[in-house]
C-alpha cells in the first residue's frame, strides 16, 4: 500500500522550506530512517529520514523548489504499485489549520450593509422586548413614551390592545405641505398632544371606578314647572339682596340632601374588610365642574346646614376657583355624594360614573318645555330627566327606583321641599 510522505513541521511553526537536494531517486529501494532529502528552513538545513521501507514510486518537487508544510514530497510503496494523486495528505501529527479569511469578510460585508441602510433598532430593554415578543407586538411599529423615546411595557400593552401609535414610514410624498405639529401615519395625518397630569389622574380614577363598582343607572323624569316658577320668582330678589349669581342648582342640592336623609345608603361607603357599610351622618356634596383641563369635583361641606343662598355663593366660588385651579386639597376630598349638572350643556340623560368611594352620583339634565299628558289633556310643561348611577353591589335596583321617585317628587313639588328645610 503506497505511503505518501508529506512535509512535516520540522521546527515549531515552520510553514515552508526549500528543497536543497534529493538523496534518493525514483525506483530506489529505501529503508526506514534512511535520509531521503535535505530541506532548508528558516531555522536550519534538515535531513528528512524515511518513515517507511519500500520502493520510491514518485518524487514530487525538485531541488530549489519551495515546499509548504503538508505538501506530498515522495511516495513509497511496492514496486509497480500505482501512485495516488498528489495533494495534501495527512501526517501522524495534525497540522495547524490554514487561516480562514472568508468568514471575516462576510462579517465586514454585513456591517457595511447595516450602516448603509441606516437601520435603527427601536429602543427597549430586554424585558420589554421579551414582553413584546410574548404579546406579538412589532416594536418597530410602536412609538416609545419612555425616556429618550424608549418603548415601555405600557406602550407594548397598549399596542397589543390595538391602540397603536404608528411611526412614520421612511419616505414622505414631497408635494404635501405638513404643518409643524402634524405627523403622517399610515392611515393619515395626526397631531400628538401630551397628556397632562390631571388627565392621567382622571383617566386612572374613571377606569378604576368602573372596575370597582357594579354601575347601574336609573333614569327618572321630573316635572320641574313649579320649581322653575319658584326659581324665577326668587332669583331677582336674591340677586338684588345678595351679591351672588343665583342658579337653580341650590334647589337640587337641597333636594338631594333630603333624599340622602331618607335613603342613608346613598350617602355611604363600604368597608369590605370590616364587612360594614359606613353611613355618613354628614352631607358633603361634590359638584362636578368642567374646566378647560378636565373634570374637577370640589366638595360643598355640610350642605344640609347651609341655606340656598349660602349654597349659591359657595357653588359660584368653588366653580370659579376650580376653573382657575385654585382649590385647596381639602376642598377636593371628603365628599359623600356627587352631583353632575350636565343639563346646561345639552343631552337627554346620561350614565355618570360614581365618584369613589361614594355609592351614588346624581345627574341633572336639561330642563325644557315638552308636551305631556295631564288629566287626559296635552299640556306644555318644563320637563327634565334625572339619572342616578349607583353601585348595585350594595344598593339594589329597587332602592334606586324609590330614591329617584322621592327625588322627582321633591323637585316636582317645591313646597314639599320647602316644608322639610
Amino acid at each position, binding site marked *: 500500500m503506497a505511503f505518501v*510522505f*508529506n512535509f*512535516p*513541521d*520540522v*521546527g*515549531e511553526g515552520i510553514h515552508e522550506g526549500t528543497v536543497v537536494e534529493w538523496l534518493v531517486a525514483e525506483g530506489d529501494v529505501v529503508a526506514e*530512517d534512511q535520509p531521503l532529502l535535505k530541506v532548508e528552513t528558516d*531555522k*536550519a*538545513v*534538515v*535531513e*528528512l*529520514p*524515511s*518513515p517507511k521501507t519500500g520502493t520510491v514510486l514518485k518524487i514530487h518537487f525538485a531541488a530549489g523548489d519551495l515546499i509548504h508544510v503538508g505538501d506530498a514530497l515522495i511516495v513509497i510503496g511496492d514496486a509497480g504499485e500505482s501512485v495516488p494523486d498528489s495533494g495534501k495528505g495527512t*501526517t*501522524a*501529527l495534525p497540522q495547524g489549520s490554514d487561516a480562514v479569511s472568508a468568514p471575516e469578510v462576510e462579517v465586514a460585508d454585513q456591517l457595511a450593509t447595516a450602516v448603509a441602510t441606516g437601520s435603527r433598532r427601536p429602543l427597549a430593554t430586554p424585558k420589554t422586548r421579551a414582553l413584546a415578543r410574548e404579546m406579538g407586538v412589532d416594536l418597530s411599529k410602536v412609538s416609545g413614551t419612555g425616556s429618550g423615546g424608549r418603548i415601555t411595557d405600557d406602550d407594548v400593552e397598549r399596542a397589543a390592545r390595538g391602540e397603536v401609535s404608528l411611526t412614520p414610514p421612511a419616505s414622505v410624498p414631497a408635494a404635501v405641505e405638513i404643518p409643524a405639529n402634524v405627523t403622517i401615519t399610515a392611515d393619515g395625518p395626526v397631531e400628538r398632544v401630551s397628556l397632562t397630569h390631571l388627565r392621567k389622574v382622571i383617566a386612572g380614577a374613571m377606569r378604576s371606578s368602573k372596575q370597582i363598582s357594579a354601575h347601574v343607572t336609573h333614569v327618572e323624569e321630573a316635572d320641574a314647572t313649579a320649581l322653575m316658577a319658584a326659581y324665577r320668582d326668587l332669583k331677582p330678589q336674591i340677586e338684588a339682596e345678595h351679591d351672588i349669581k343665583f342658579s337653580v342648582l341650590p334647589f337640587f342640592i337641597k333636594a338631594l340632601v333630603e333624599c340622602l336623609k331618607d335613603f342613608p345608603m346613598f350617602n355611604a361607603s363600604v368597608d369590605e374588610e370590616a364587612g360594614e357599610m359606613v353611613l355618613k351622618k354628614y352631607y358633603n356634596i361634590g359638584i362636578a365642574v368642567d374646566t378647560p383641563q378636565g373634570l374637577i369635583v370640589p366638595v360643598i361641606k355640610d350642605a344640609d346646614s347651609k341655606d340656598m343662598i349660602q349654597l349659591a355663593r359657595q357653588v359660584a366660588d368653588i366653580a370659579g376657583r376650580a376653573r382657575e385651579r385654585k382649590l385647596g386639597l381639602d376642598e377636593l376630598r371628603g365628599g359623600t355624594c356627587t352631583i353632575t349638572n350636565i343639563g346646561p350643556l345639552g343631552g337627554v340623560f346620561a350614565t355618570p360614573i360614581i365618584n369613589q368611594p361614594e355609592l351614588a352620583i346624581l345627574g341633572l339634565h336639561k330642563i325644557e318645555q315638552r308636551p305631556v299628558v295631564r288629566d287626559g289633556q296635552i299640556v306644555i310643561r318644563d320637563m327634565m330627566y334625572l339619572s342616578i348611577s349607583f353601585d348595585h353591589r350594595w344598593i339594589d335596583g329597587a332602592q334606586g327606583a324609590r330614591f329617584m321617585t322621592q327625588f322627582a317628587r321633591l323637585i316636582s313639588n317645591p313646597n314639599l321641599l320647602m316644608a322639610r328645610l
Partner: protein
Amino acid sequence: MPRTTVYEAVTQRLEILDLEGQVDAELMPELDPNRIIEFYRNMVLMRAFDNKALKLQRQGRMGTWPPIQGQEAIQVATAMAMEDSDWLIPAFREQAVMVLRGVPAHTIYAYWAGDERGSAFPDGVRCFPIAVPVGSQWQHGAGVGLSLKLRGEQAAAVVFGGDGSTSEGDFHEGLNAAGVFKTNTVFVIQNNQWAISVPLSKQTASQTLAQKAHAYGVPGIQVDGNDIFAVHVAVTEALERARTGGGPTLIEAETYRLGDHTTADDASRYRSEEEVEQWREKDPIPRLRKYLEANGLWDEERETALENEAREWVDTQVEALEAMPPQPLEAIFEYMYDEMPPHLAEQMAALKAEVEA
C-alpha cells in the same frame, strides 16, 4: 586591626575513568562486573531511544524533542543508584533517568508527541512530570525532600536541572530552603555547557556551579559527568547522606550537549564543529566500552547483539506509541478538578455538541 577570614571554601572535582578506559584504582568503587555491563547496556539502549526520536520528529511523527546525546552517563548512573522509594524530579532532558526509574519508554515518546498521558506514570513510580518552566523544579526537590524528612522516610528526592536553570531564582530558593530545613534532597546539575545558545561563561561569573553550594551551607561536588564511575560515587554518597538525615547535596556533573537544544534548534548557528568534536572524544559510551573490553567484559559479538536488541526495543516503543488511541474530548476537561464544576461541564457539553454536529 587586620581583616580576619570568616569563611574559606574548597570545591572538589571527582574523576575516576579516563578517556582511554583506565580507572584510578584508589577511587574506583566496588561494583559487580554485571552491574558495569548493565551501565553500558542502558546507555546504549537510551541513546538508541533518543536517536530514534529525532528521526520521528523529522518524519512528523513526534513533536519537539530535546536530545540527551552525550549525557547518558549522568542519567544512567543516577537512576541505577536510586531506590524505588526515592523520588525523581526531572527538568526536561532526563529521559534516560525516567525510563530507568520505571516510566514506560513509549509514554515519554507520547509526552513529547503531545499527549498528556505521557505524564501519567504507573502507580508506585515515584516520579514528577517534566518541568517546562526552567528551574521551577529545584523548589519541588526541596519540598519533596522536606516531605520525606517530616514523614521519617529513609528516602531522598533527586532533582535535576541544567546549567542555565541555576540562574533562575528557584535554584537559589530551593537550595536555600533545603539547607535551612536539611531536607532529604540530592540536587544534580547536568552542566552540558549550553543553555540553547548561551554558553556557561555567559550564564554565571562563578568559576564552577558546584561552588554555589557553599552559599547555602550545603555540601557540593563537581564530577566529570561523562565518567560513569565518578557519577555513581558522588550520587551514592549524596543519596546516603540525604536518606539518613544528613541533609542535601549539590552535584555538578560536567558534560556536553552533543546535539541541538531541541529539534527546533540549529546549534551550528552559535558554536563550532571543532568544539563539538573535541567533546565527542569524551563521549561516555565509547569510554566505558574501552573499560569493558580492557577488562574482558565485552566484545564485537556482544556489541552487535546489543545493537539489535536496542533497535528492536526502540521499534517496540514506537509501535506502542502509535498504537495509542487518541484521548477523547472529555480529556480536556476531566482533569482540572477533583470533581468537575458545573460551568466546566457546560463548556464540555457545548464543545461536544459542536464537534458532533
